[in-house]
């Protein structure tokens, strides 16, 4: 059922003269015939008056209030924005939206899902320069979340973790420093720069606790403790924890990144040449040691 507007238009066209070059025209208001302004009074710009400093475009500095203390200088510091330049914000991703993306084949779940895969859907934009840290999973839609995925995000709460693990999936929270995040969200552009893949930096002081905590499935936490927490969470929320060994996607679900790794399958120090389809690896022992540390 084509929209009635389209059907109407096409059936109208059948009765109208043939669409030809001589028949066509722009939409009303499409072309703005701007003429160059002249004169100082009614000439419609291009005149700055005559005489005086106004004619010479002498403006005072922005914010100057002709002598009194201007607004931007009246208040020295406000406590509410202390440390704002250190705080990260995360792009919210609802579980319902995640499920929709998987159902419509927008997001692949036959590979481990991380920032790169989520950005590849084209539905999100992240700017690490504006202190954005990545993705955080939200509670909206956890009740009907059904996919079994191996997902890596930057922030997740307990309920979200439970909803992922209930379906046999795995969730990890991982920190990406701004440089690594820039590389991770736009890999092709990054490879085009021709520099070696950097090592991912460890989280700052106020975040290290979060990512070392097995309750948050942090990537720096002890895997044994994480497994224990999985079991405990299943008991708390009252679901049976599916056995991963029985699942057909076992390899994909158990794949994890090294704390210093940005991309799956690529190590720090490698240079990826997409044009010649070649990966260059460092041979110097000092470099190798540096990138492996």
């Amino acid at each position, binding site marked *: *059922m*084509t*929209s009635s*507007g*389209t059907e109407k*238009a*096409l*059936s109208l*066209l*059948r009765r*109208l003269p*043939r*669409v*030809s*070059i001589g028949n*066509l*025209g*722009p*939409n009303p208001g*499409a072309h703005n015939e701007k003429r*160059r302004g002249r004169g100082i009074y009614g000439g419609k710009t291009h005149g700055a008056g005559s005489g005086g400093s106004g004619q010479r475009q002498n403006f005072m500095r922005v914010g100057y209030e002709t002598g009194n203390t201007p607004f931007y200088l009246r208040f020295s510091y406000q406590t509410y924005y202390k440390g704002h330049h250190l705080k990260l914000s995360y792009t919210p991703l609802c579980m319902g939206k995640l499920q929709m993306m998987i159902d419509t084949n*927008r997001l692949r779940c036959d590979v481990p899902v991380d920032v790169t895969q989520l950005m*590849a*859907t*084209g539905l999100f934009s992240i700017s690490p320069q504006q202190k954005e840290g990545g993705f955080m999973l939200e509670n909206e839609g956890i009740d009907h979340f059904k996919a079994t995925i191996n997902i890596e995000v930057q922030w997740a709460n307990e309920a979200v973790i439970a909803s992922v693990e209930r379906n046999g999936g795995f969730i990890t929270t991982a920190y990406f420093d701004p440089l690594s995040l820039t590389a991770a969200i736009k890999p092709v552009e990054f490879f085009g720069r021709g520099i070696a893949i950097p090592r991912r930096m460890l989280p700052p002081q106020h975040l290290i606790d979060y990512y070392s905590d097995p309750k948050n499935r942090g990537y720096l936490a002890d895997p044994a403790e994480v497994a224990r927490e999985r079991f405990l969470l299943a008991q708390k929320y009252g679901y049976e924890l599916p056995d991963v060994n029985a699942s057909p996607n076992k390899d994909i679900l158990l794949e994890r990144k090294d704390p210093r790794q940005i991309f799956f399958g690529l190590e720090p120090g490698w240079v990826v040449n997409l044009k010649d389809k070649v990966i260059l690896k460092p041979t110097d022992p000092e470099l190798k040691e540096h990138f492996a540390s």
Partner: protein
Amino acid sequence: EHHCIMAQRLFYPTLRNSLRCFGTTPGWQTEAVAVPQAPSAPLILNETSEIDKNVAEVAREAWIETLDPSGENLHVGLIHLHPKVFATYPRLDIIHENVVWQQKYRMVNTSHTKLRSEVRGGGRKPWPQKGTGRARHGSIRSPLWKGGGVVHGPRAFTTQFYMLSFGKRIMGLTSTLSAKFAQDDLKIVENLDMPSDEAGFLEKLCEDRCWGPSVLFVDDCDLMPRNITVATDTINHINLMPVYGLNVYSMLKHNTVVLTVSASQCIEERILHHLNKPDYHLINCAKCYNK
């Protein structure tokens, strides 16, 4: 279940009229249909593209004709055309933009006026600053003077080049194809094989079928069969074009546009590819597409 019922119905030729709703089910499958035809004619019921199969819109049907009038049937088969390419809303303003762009982007303005520095003369101060009682002037070629230079006039070899956004160009193609198809000016032909290489034969064929005076034949490959090439060589208003040369201006300039089956499939595949790709949101991004 729904597909099962559909499949059952399809096997009953008497219920062929109910086939009209066949296109509305998601997923249009290739099914043989009993069309009353001579048994010698091959039946082609084409499902074209792999991309964008599940559409809610009805697929448009077109006869597949042949350029060989000697056969028993003029119509050799039936082809399904994808609605998102051949039955979109005909955006006439976008078609206009495309036509204007095609004409303008190659334009170079050669009109030229001289500046006050370029006009011959005018280096000397015509009369002293004070004392003469006349207005003060520095040069006889200033813009105030008759015969003086022009300030903001046209300067030669100003290009009118600009690139229409990729999305608009795609929409121009789909709108034009839809408009042509809606107005019965789009014909699908099996191939461009003709029995005769005479210009007169082709002109008579076009006249018999009420194909407009000007006809544009579009084929998949740029090496066309010999007969049609020879026939159209002398006729200026009947032209051959490979698929990659398809453009809005040419389609509008010619009254009838005749696509071969392979050309229409190629066009569909390419347009649907662009309409369905994951980075579709970048389609109007000048950085990526307007090179």
